[in-house]
């Protein structure tokens, strides 16, 4: 017995098996990273999404639920980021300079995966804005409470100007929204395994919160 999820692919609703959904969302996340530096990446992704929907409709026939085999088959047709990357890199090597001029601003953009650390606000472990926990993650401090204490002490010692610094950091750092952001926040390498691990963690988190919620609901009754 498997849970199913409802998804919308290019305006068409699909019922999809939970495993298949996880696999698909991982794939889309990787594509998003792959196309991130291309202009019009949103459009490319939405085109791909619609096409995946078409493929599913084709595979489903009279069946109702998209299964993991369907997802794998569709990904095989569409190509993994590695497939796309391999073709593009090959093209880059064989490109001549004339072609580079014709395709304009596209070529100087790097399409390598970013592995560098970036400063994010960690809203999941936040007290006020996640600034301190983000800093802790960035500098590898195990417990963000030390950063918080540091800020409070600095605030007292500097008669408030550390608070101003805090507000500025808050304002200029983005919140870590996706699994990819959270990996970059810690400087972890971004690859298929790392992201799937992260996505799974997020799933577990949601499940935990849901259980807690339903428990408290039961208690109230």
């Amino acid at each position: 017995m498997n849970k199913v999820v409802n998804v919308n692919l290019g305006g068409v609703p699909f019922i999809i098996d939970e495993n298949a959904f996880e696999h698909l969302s991982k794939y889309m996340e990787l594509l998003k990273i792959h196309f991130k530096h291309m202009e019009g990446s949103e459009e490319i992704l939405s085109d791909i999404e619609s096409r995946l929907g078409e493929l599913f409709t084709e595979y489903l026939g009279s069946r109702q639920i998209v299964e993991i085999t369907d997802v794998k088959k569709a990904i095989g047709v569409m190509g993994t980021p590695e497939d796309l990357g391999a073709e593009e890199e090959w093209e880059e090597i064989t490109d001549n300079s004339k072609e580079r001029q014709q395709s304009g601003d596209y070529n100087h953009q790097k399409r390598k995966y970013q592995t560098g650390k970036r400063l994010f606000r960690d809203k999941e472990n936040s007290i006020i804005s996640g600034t301190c926990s983000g800093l802790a993650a960035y500098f590898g401090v195990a417990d963000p409470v030390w950063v918080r204490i540091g800020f409070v002490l600095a605030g007292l010692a500097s008669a408030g100007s550390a608070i101003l610094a805090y507000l500025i950091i808050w304002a200029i750092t983005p919140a870590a929204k996706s699994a990819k952001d959270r990996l970059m926040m810690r400087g972890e390498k971004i690859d298929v395994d790392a992201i799937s691990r992260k996505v799974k963690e997020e799933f577990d988190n949601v499940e935990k919160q849901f259980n807690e919620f339903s428990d408290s609901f039961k208690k109230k009754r």
Partner: protein
Amino acid sequence: MKKGILEMCILAIISKEEVYASDIIDRLKSGNLIVVEGTLYPMLSRLKKAGHLDHYWQESQAGPPRKYYRLTPEGEEFLQNLSTSWEEMVKSVSSLTSKNKSNNE
């Protein structure tokens, strides 16, 4: 180089009739020109940005509206130029290779 040829093929397909992405994929596949479909979408988006292509939405009987592509006048001209240089290249390459053959003999 391969990308240039692919772009030319895509433009040629679109110049014959107004098509949507799956039609282009089918034609390219039947000609063994692409391996994975994912490579097509970035190219379409790039051609569109360069002003060679244009798209519009058309209702379909099955499912949501489809995105159809057509060439712009600039695209037509670009395709003309590409075809001319392609023909020139084929001519010179084939004359070179045939010369080589006669040398070897």
